């Protein structure tokens, strides 16, 4: 059959219209990488993955982003850096995802970020915190709204400096701190921040030591701590190593005035209580705040509702009552990307390729109170020593009191008068 000219024009026009309609409705494929198995899974990665999925579900239920449905292609890094990198390559080259998102462990994040950036693909980091991901790397296509490890280290020392005199009855210069950490980029990064800021504030760092997160024995570290007699222990670790350390500390007779953890395993309060019961009462944890702890009135209108919905869905899905900060991290960063960066990339820069996303990310300007974790978002520009890192993020110091999480620092956000030193009768009290 031969079509006449008008018919051919009609067919062509129809094809163009259909093509345009199809491209408008094209799905956006996001490669989401978390550790769903292995030791990191139970250390907060799974909780973050659920947070991310909730955010994607909520966006899709509202019709997606600018008419595009979000399709997450989930990958399990199995708590192994090589698997994380292989999965990233598979997602980008075989699944042809439009961007990568997620990643719990800094040990995975550091190499993965450089590899993805070198391939000029877009990577939105949700949970990993090591400053080393960005420091002096001048990455172009990697962005992280999340807090970074230097800030973790800084927060605990500043908190201690504030409470030393009024609470611990000690001058700051007389305060002895020990810094212990897992020896990956996350632990090393936080410990470095701890050491720099605590020393700058005049505290005595009596011990600083790293260890492998898969170590079978930490009793010699406990013995060394007993000899060094620190007032406060600043600890950064994952889950199995934290429980091993706390168990061996108790059995080894280690005593201190305060224990300040820095996220990861210390963010899993329900697990810590299940294992140690009252022994972890009055422990501190530095982390981006779990959204449900913030007063919704201090946030922009509507943000509190987002938190409530996230909490409702997380509890329904997992059946647990205590929602860890990792859920907020996974949800919050994903929500920021889907509700702020991605729409701008599509509307202003014509799509969602790496270049459009990069330009849109660099224009992000969310003021304080504009996210469920309270902090604002504005990324350091190219050329900055932390290019791609959110300049407005900040952690808080939380204290666990009888199974509940309270905010102890910054003072303006306090929901508890911090209990320090540990009260008499506590398993670790002096």
């Amino acid at each position, binding site marked *: 059959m031969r079509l006449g000219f008008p018919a051919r024009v009609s067919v062509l026009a129809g094809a163009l219209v259909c093509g345009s309609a199809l491209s408008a409705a094209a799905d956006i494929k996001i490669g989401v990488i978390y550790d769903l198995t*292995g030791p990191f899974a139970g250390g907060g990665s799974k909780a973050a993955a659920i947070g991310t999925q909730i955010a994607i579900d909520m966006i899709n239920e509202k019709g997606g982003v600018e008419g595009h449905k979000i399709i997450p292609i989930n990958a399990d890094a199995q708590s192994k850096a090589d698997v994380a990198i292989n999965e990233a390559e598979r997602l980008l080259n075989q699944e042809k995802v439009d961007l990568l998102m997620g990643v719990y462990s800094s040990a995975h994040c550091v190499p993965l970020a450089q590899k993805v950036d070198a391939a000029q693909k877009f990577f939105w980091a949700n949970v990993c915190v090591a400053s080393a991901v960005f420091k002096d790397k001048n990455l172009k296509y990697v962005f992280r709204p999340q807090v970074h490890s230097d800030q973790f280290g800084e927060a605990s020392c500043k908190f201690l400096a504030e409470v030393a005199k009024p609470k611990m009855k000690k001058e700051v210069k007389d305060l002895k701190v020990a810094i212990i950490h897992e020896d990956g980029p996350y632990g090393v990064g936080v410990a470095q921040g701890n050491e720099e800021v605590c020393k700058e504030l005049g505290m005595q760092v009596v011990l600083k030591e790293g260890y492998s997160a898969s170590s079978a024995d930490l*009793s*010699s570290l406990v013995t060394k701590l007993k000899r060094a007699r620190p007032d406060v222990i600043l600890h950064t670790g994952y889950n*199995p190593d934290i*429980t091993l350390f706390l168990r061996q500390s108790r*059995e*080894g007779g280690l005593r201190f005035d305060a224990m300040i953890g820095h996220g990861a395993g210390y963010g899993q309060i329900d697990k810590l209580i299940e294992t140690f019961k009252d022994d972890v009462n009055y422990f501190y944890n530095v982390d981006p705040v779990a959204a449900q702890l913030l007063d919704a009135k201090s946030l922009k209108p509507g943000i509190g509702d987002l938190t409530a919905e996230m909490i409702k869905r997380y509890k329904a899905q997992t059946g647990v009552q205590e929602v860890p900060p990792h859920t907020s991290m996974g949800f919050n960063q994903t929500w920021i990307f889907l509700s702020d960066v991605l729409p701008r990339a599509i509307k202003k820069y014509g799509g969602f390729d790496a270049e459009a996303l990069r330009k849109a990310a660099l224009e992000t300007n969310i003021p304080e109170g504009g996210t469920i974790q309270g902090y604002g978002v504005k990324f350091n520009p190219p050329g900055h020593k932390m290019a791609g890192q959110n300049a407005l993020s900040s952690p808080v110091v939380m204290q666990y009191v009888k199974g509940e999480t309270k905010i102890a620092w910054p003072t303006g956000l306090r929901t508890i008068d911090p209990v320090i030193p540990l009260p008499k009768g506590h398993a670790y009290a002096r």
Partner: protein
Amino acid sequence: MDTIFDIYLLEAIVNGVLLGGVLGLLALGLNLVFGVIDVVWICYAELVMLGMYTVYFLHVVYGVPVLLACLGAVVVVGVLGALLHYLVIRPVLQSEPINQLLVTGGVLFFLQSFATLVFGIEFRNLGLKLPILNFGEMYFSYARVLAFLVALAGMVGLYLFLTRTFLGTAIRAIAQDREIMPLMGVDSRKLYLVTSGIGGGLAGLAACLLVLQYDVHPAIGLTFGPITFMICVLGGLGNMIGGFVAAFIISQFISIGGFFFHIEWGYVIAFAFFILTMFIRPQGLFGK
């Protein structure tokens, strides 16, 4: 120097001895199996992991008293050891050693994935608070002391079994010559099965003591598997006394090395000693 050689050093040494007990117990079953059947169970630590889960579920979920739960774990892992031999090892018994190694390596990944699917990724523990033993400024883990004593008892018990019973004598005989004994009417298949069951039972016993000290999760085997294997090789694969002595040597390197230097240096020194020994005595300290 007077600040270095103090009560804390003594504590580190004793802690090293106690750690040696834990590692020695782990090495015992692996060495028994290799010594008799000449096959290395790369998946040995994963059997221990399943034993830890058995204790956890029996005690925490079903309310079985801890001692009975431990007995249950010894039986369950013993049966698993026998099944491992019957289903996996026996078909490849005449194959190249590398094939036997790979097949147990495959079981390792199978068991890890199986545990992840069935038990989930949660870290679980018995929630027991054991008493603390202290002598002045020195503190020791009750669980470690218990592990040390049980390891010694296990070693003595196994020695008595192998030397004082008919079955034990048969196992020793077949370990000495796997070719001749079947010609003399010994049912090697049965002996291998029994040995695998005992090896599994020892893994179950180690699981009972580890679950008092560590959280159980599907990847816990990775914490102990490599070091247990290294200890067996250092002592001389298949040599139970060698494995026991090697466990104490390695644990002292870890403990004292970690006390004097950075904690990771303890492992560096231990592995350097291992490599050096392999150059000088490739068959291991007690190997023939």
